[in-house]
């Protein structure tokens, strides 16, 4: 089956990201396809490059990276929700005159249209909020 996930919960504030990750990892382990993880609302903080949790806690961003490294999952972040919350890739940082950037590949800033597409183009879309 082809799956997409929507993640709305902030990392370390709510269970949503942790559950989404474990579900995503289980999907791939079972041989399903996970085409897209779309981060929206406070879920965009999952992409924060500067995330530095204590060492004895799961590093959520690194786990997402591990997922993307398996090669078939895109990590897409809503650009409007991200910019409001201070998550800018290099291009957006330059455009807004910021000295550093806080989001980088494999996370990609995209429009909400990608969420709509992920919803309609996969067998299942599962929301973690």
């Amino acid at each position: 089956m082809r799956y997409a996930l929507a993640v709305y919960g902030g990392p370390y504030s709510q269970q949503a990201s942790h559950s989404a990750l474990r579900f995503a990892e289980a999907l791939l382990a079972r041989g399903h396809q996970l085409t897209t993880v779309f981060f929206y609302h406070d879920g965009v903080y999952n992409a924060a490059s500067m995330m530095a949790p204590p060492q004895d806690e799961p590093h959520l961003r690194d786990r997402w990276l591990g997922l993307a490294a398996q090669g078939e999952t895109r990590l897409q972040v809503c650009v409007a929700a991200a910019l409001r919350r201070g998550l800018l890739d290099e291009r957006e940082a330059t455009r807004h005159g910021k000295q550093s950037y806080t989001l980088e590949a494999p996370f990609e800033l995209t429009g909400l249209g990608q969420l709509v597409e992920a919803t309609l183009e996969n067998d299942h879309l599962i929301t973690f909020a």
Partner: protein
Amino acid sequence: MGIVSPGESLAPGELLVILRHAPHGSSWLREGLEAAMVAAAFGREVGLLFTGEGVLALLEGQQAGALGQKGSDNLLAALEMYDVERCYVDAAALERRGLSENDVSLLPVTVLAHADVVALTQCFSRVLSF
């Protein structure tokens, strides 16, 4: 307007966006509406269901407040421009808040009996919940 019986106006649709949060206090309503509008702008057939605290968005006068958030009035007013015409409200959610269909004059909405809300979600092939 009145409470419809199932089947009467529940044609199949592509994407149902469920709005469960009040217009103030969080960004859920705004971000949910934006998702609905983008889907409509991409030519998708979108339905909106207001339930839970989301029904409060249908009361008139949701203006920008002290927190500097934009009011939801303008977003809701733009729905028609985006061809989002199928708007539903959960009668039970209204009743629980002491409201009736006469209070939700901001948009043309269809008031659904709570049991028909389930039927509605089954009419749409995909559901996004905010």
